[in-house]
């Protein structure tokens, strides 16, 4: 290889160095979060993960992120429960069923959902969706199914459930567009073989298309989970923002908190270093969760797309 400083080599090296900027950003983030959370982890150790207190009073400090980790998992779980079937239905409709005329405008509308800023989802959730959910879902549920522990409590709309519903809307564009690509990557010969033995469209999709694209769809779901876990503003605006032991999730219809909303609410106002460090620690926990999710999703999606011969590239 020519090692001389020709224009080509300079250009290659320069752009190669800049291509590392993503890695630098990632390392910067990791570095800041790890060094920032050292004080709180040193003081509380494992009880930072398992405790449910959040007491910033100097001299009596005690910080535990368990309620917020659970809150994050619960809201993301609701988001997946509602959002994934919807997204799959959309993806299937757009690939397999819709007439050509409506395909483009419909997929375009679904993609517009991704363009709406999250703070506007939050505003809408706070002043519109919240009341729909209280009146038409939560009150009937708690009235008739209130004996089931997760539906007990006095619903007023700013709670885990509303946050989960908002998240489910926000993950639809991600999950739908990735599963759409996966479904279109299923070769037509598979469909033709299935139709050839007399299957109906529903049977073709259920037994052949979906099982062929299984791991890709799984990857899409995990990507959606990653979005739901990291989403901040919309959740902060509708989840009710309880802090401390009362944020420990007991029912779906109670105010709570997720890791991102905890940070968004308290980080700037935290006056003393140990409390700031506690928020940074919460950020570290969030980062670890979301990195794990993303790596799993990445492996799943790239694997399936490689199997399909790079149909999406």
């Amino acid at each position, binding site marked *: 290889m020519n090692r001389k400083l020709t224009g080509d080599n300079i250009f290659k090296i320069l752009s190669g160095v800049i291509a590392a900027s993503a890695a630098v950003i990632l390392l910067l983030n990791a570095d800041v979060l790890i060094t920032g959370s050292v004080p709180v982890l040193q003081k509380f150790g494992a009880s930072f993960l398992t405790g449910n207190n959040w007491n910033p009073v100097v001299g009596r400090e005690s910080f535990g992120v368990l309620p917020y980790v659970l809150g994050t998992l619960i809201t993301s779980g609701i988001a997946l429960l509602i959002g994934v079937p919807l997204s799959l*239905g959309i993806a299937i409709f757009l690939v397999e069923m819709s007439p050509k005329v409506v395909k483009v405008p419909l997929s375009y509308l679904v993609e517009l*959902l991704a363009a709406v800023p999250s703070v506007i989802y939050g*505003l809408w959730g706070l002043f519109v969706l919240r009341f729909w959910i209280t009146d038409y879902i939560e009150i009937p549920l708690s009235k008739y199914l209130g004996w089931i522990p997760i539906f007990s409590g006095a619903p007023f709309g700013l709670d885990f459930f509303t946050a989960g519903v908002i998240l489910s809307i926000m993950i639809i564009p991600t999950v739908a567009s990735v599963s759409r690509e996966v479904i279109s990557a299923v070769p037509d010969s598979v469909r033709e073989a299935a139709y050839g033995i007399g299957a109906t469209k529903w049977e073709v999709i259920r037994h052949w298309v979906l099982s062929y694209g299984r791991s890709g769809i799984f990857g899409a779901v995990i990507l959606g989970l990653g979005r739901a876990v990291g989403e901040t*503003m919309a959740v902060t605006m509708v989840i009710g923002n309880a802090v401390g032991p009362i944020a420990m999730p007991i029912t779906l219809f109670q105010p709570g908190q997720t890791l991102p909303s905890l940070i968004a609410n308290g980080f700037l106002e935290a006056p003393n270093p140990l409390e700031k460090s506690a928020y940074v620690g919460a950020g570290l926990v969030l980062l670890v969760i979301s990195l794990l999710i*993303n790596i799993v999703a990445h492996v799943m999606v790239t694997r399936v797309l490689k199997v399909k011969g790079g149909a999406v590239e």
Partner: protein
Amino acid sequence: MSSWSWLNKFRQWFNGYRVRKFKNRLFFVLCLLCVVIAIVPLLSILFEVIARGTPEVNLHFLIANGLQGGIGPAIQGTLILIGLTSLIGIPLGVLSGVYLAEFGNNKYASWMRTTNDILTEFPSIVVGITAYSIIVVNITGKPSPLAGAIALSFMLVPIVARTTEESMKLVPNSVREASMALGARRWRSIISVVLPSAKGGLITGTLLAVARVAGETAPILLTILGNSYFFQGFNQPIDALPLRIFLDSRMPQPELQAQAWGAALILILIVLSLNIAVRLISRGRLKR
């Protein structure tokens, strides 16, 4: 024995042609319903923002400062943040993308690609913490547009890198070969031939990325603080539309909540019009 034959009969009926056909129909309707359910929130959001925001918007609302009930500082702040972020993020992103597309056939590049993917799905609030700890604590001393722009460009770089790579890969190799056959160096042909050929996709993707970042709130929540006055310097707190919406929505005063809807209308107009325009243009280009 008789009960079993009953079950068999039921099975036969259930797997029969008519029921299968009905299931098929039902499935179609369910999928259609999914699409409708997903579009309802979008329409409702647009309707509410327009219905509640329009009465607020007038010239005074757009240019007056916060104390006089306007969102001028927020609009100005958003424009400043977009400008600064683009200034930092676009060159880094485009050059990363160029490397990944043109020299990206090695292990290093594939690692960087993975890093980009991970960074794209990064929790945005974490980026805010990082920018706060680096810029606000060490450099400006208080929340500032500089910190906000750094936080936002952390989100912009990976998206721009990705779209650059993708649009450059669409340029056929014959174009590169033609340019080099004319005697151009590789770097020269990348800059003067390949990049201009990829221009359409590149501009589209970058504008979409900027539109997305312009609506981000979490990273700037921790880094710019908000301000009722117009721009006061790169090391002073600044306002921005998404932040103004968030702060106003938490206030008990109805006039501030109304202001939030007005600001939401302006923000959604900026973001959606950018989106729609870009897509219309790019579709026209593809058809040609």
